[in-house]
């Protein structure tokens, strides 16, 4: 029954039996709802990023004056490639799970997971490179982050780049949020893979693999979108 038909039903007419219970899978519906939430989150970050870039809300005349282009470590390209490959591996795992091919499923899952972890380590290494280049999140050891008592007035010297370039701050924030979402996928991957390696039945993990693979593809799209944003600057 189409949504329109469902919403234009006249329930006061003709009491009697009606449609059966929904036959779509519940976890799939739950995932779809969750993906809407994540889409909203990154959409809003995109808006904030673009508004910042165009100098929105700052005094007229200094449009974009504080927006400095951030460095784009070449490693980001490699990381993107790795994430893309891991999505391919996930697709292979989904197909193997549907076919019921245990050996293929096992190897595809291992490859997908390894590539996923490689992506995350790569992202951490990008952070490291940025820090090496002087783009800190917080600099001097012993700096009281909270600044209790005597509030620290010297952010300028402590965070020369973080305060100077919102692009870097956005980069840290967005990669962190994306990485955390990916970690959620890794947790499901760990659960499914351990079951497969212990020789559990494929039927038991089929849905997990299917949905986690979808989630992974989605996060790949999110990453490509965000990477495009970074390249814009």
């Amino acid at each position: 029954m189409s949504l329109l038909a469902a919403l234009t039903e006249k329930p006061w007419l003709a009491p009697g039996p009606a449609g059966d219970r929904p036959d779509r899978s519940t976890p799939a519906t739950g995932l779809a709802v969750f993906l809407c939430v994540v889409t909203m989150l990154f959409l809003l970050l995109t808006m904030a990023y673009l508004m910042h870039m165009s100098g929105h809300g700052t005094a007229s005349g200094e449009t974009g004056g504080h927006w400095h282009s951030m460095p784009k470590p070449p490693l980001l390209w490699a990381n993107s490639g790795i994430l893309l490959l891991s999505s391919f591996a996930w697709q292979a795992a989904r197909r193997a799970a549907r076919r019921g091919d245990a050996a293929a499923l096992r190897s595809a899952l291992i490859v997908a997971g390894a590539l996923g972890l490689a992506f995350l380590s790569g992202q951490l290494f990008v952070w490291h490179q940025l820090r090496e280049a002087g783009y800190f999140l917080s600099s001097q050891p012993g700096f009281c982050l909270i600044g209790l008592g005597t509030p620290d007035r010297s952010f300028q010297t402590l965070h020369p780049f973080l305060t100077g370039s919102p692009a870097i701050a956005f980069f840290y924030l967005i990669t962190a949020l994306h990485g955390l979402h990916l970690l959620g996928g890794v947790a499901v991957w760990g659960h499914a893979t351990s079951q497969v390696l212990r020789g559990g039945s494929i039927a038991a993990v089929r849905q997990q693999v299917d949905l986690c693979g979808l989630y992974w593809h989605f996060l790949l799209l999110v990453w490509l979108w965000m990477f495009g944003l970074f390249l814009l600057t």
Partner: protein
Amino acid sequence: MATVTLADDMRPLHHPKTFIGKYIWSQDHKVIAIQYSLTAISIGVVALVLSALMRLQLGFPGTFSFIQPDHYLQYVTMHGMIMVVYLLTALLLGGFGNYLIPLMVGARDMVFPFVNMLSYWVYLLSVLVLVSGFFVPGGPAGSGWTLYPPQAILDGTPGHQWGIITMLVSLAIFIVAFTMGGLNYVTTVLQARTKGMTLMRMPCSVWGIFVASIMGLLAFPALFVAAIMMLLDRIAGTSFFMPSIVSMGQQTGYQGGSPILFQHLFWFFGHPEVYIVALPAFGIVSDLISVHARKNIFGYRMMVWAIIVIGALSFFVWAHHMYVSGMNPYFGFFFATSTLIIAIPTAIKVYNWLLTLYRGNIHLRVPMLFAIGFLFTFIHGGLSGLFLGNVSVDLPLSDTFFVVGHFHMVMGVSPILVIFGAIYHWYPKITGRMWNDMLGKIHFWITFLGVYAIYLPMHYLGILGVPRRYYALGPTAFIPPSAHLANEGITIAALIVFVAQGLFFFNMIWSFFRGPKADPNPWGAASLEWQTPDTPPKHGNWGPRLPTVYRWAYDYSVPGAAQDFIPQNVPPGDADRHHPT
């Protein structure tokens, strides 16, 4: 933990045996609903006490030396945030949503019970983090509940040391909790309806909660992003929202951030939030009015469509909270127009409630009194909203008590009256006992008349120009002595209403132990939650077999039927003829 699978429902159902499994780490939606409700009401009482303290200061400035200007601002901030987010949102969705959705759509539980349990415990954590703000150095945040930067994190704002941090962290945690709960509410409505329960056979309560949950899932990310970014501004020295600014004579290190960006993010959440609170209330009040007027809800489809349309439109009106931010006048025109358009579906709902009452067999029981009280306060609050929705009228009124009167009437008092009505209405089902009718009626009349005594004069104060958020007015030329008199009167009324809530709590607690046993369906309601085999419903809700639904939830006073209501799970037979409408 024993696991059984019931014949008609292939999902396994966990039956915990121990006290802790049943009542603490429970995955039963009813227990989680009660946990959510009790936590929300407890923190709501804290906010109520804060409002009483604020009124003491405003009514009798200078009398209470323990209320310092800093404290006053902190009371304002905490009162607002607690009431909107931690009480209303949590109680209407976490409390009523959890309790009513599975029972009203004929499910055994939420579709993800474990996530549901987690949602409550994470919510409790967010409340504890919020409360910890009272005990940190410098006290809780005092920047106003909207937390506008740059002042929220600069020196001179009370709570800028730690209070703002606990507030932002608590909000982020709350949003995680809400997302887990919201996923459950939406997916349960979509997936776990029993046989025969089409979308348009769901009671309005479920529709309101369902649409509000979707809105929450889409709107809360904006607050999440804003909270995280401001947190980074505060603790890591980023400049997402902080412009170059001189604070206390010293140049801060911030530069290039946009405070207006925060306002956009905040209100992109904040306006839908109004309807996240209002839509469940709309839905519930529709059911209360229909049941206690023994009449089907007038224009059921219009009611459902109006809920959906209001939900969608509410994402396009957020900047009407920002008319004074210096925005482009064309934007103001757009948002004023969209704001007035949203009044159309809202007015449809109001007319339909009135038309449901028209020639109904009205039983003025306590839940019905609260429902009718809601109609008054909501219409009044809505009408003053028409003033504030227009840019040119809003500009002079924006920073006055007119706004306080307006939003307390429309989204403070109105949902609270519905919540009281709903608690009285479903209490017999939840506890299996009946409350004291006389106490309930006294509670209603003091509360209803009291809120008018509190909020109606505020509109006049606002038109006089009395500013909001001020600790004390002092000798201000344009404020006449009568304004001070009105303030005293408001405070006295507020204290009476404050004390009268004791009647409610006494009634609920006393009746829980000593109240007479309740009939399983004391109001003669047709919707599914009153047709459970046990009262209160046991774990799994429906005994061995799920109910089958044959009709909508509003078959009241059907000509020819044996009773004046036909429950949703009664098959069409000879007892009832075709519904005449």
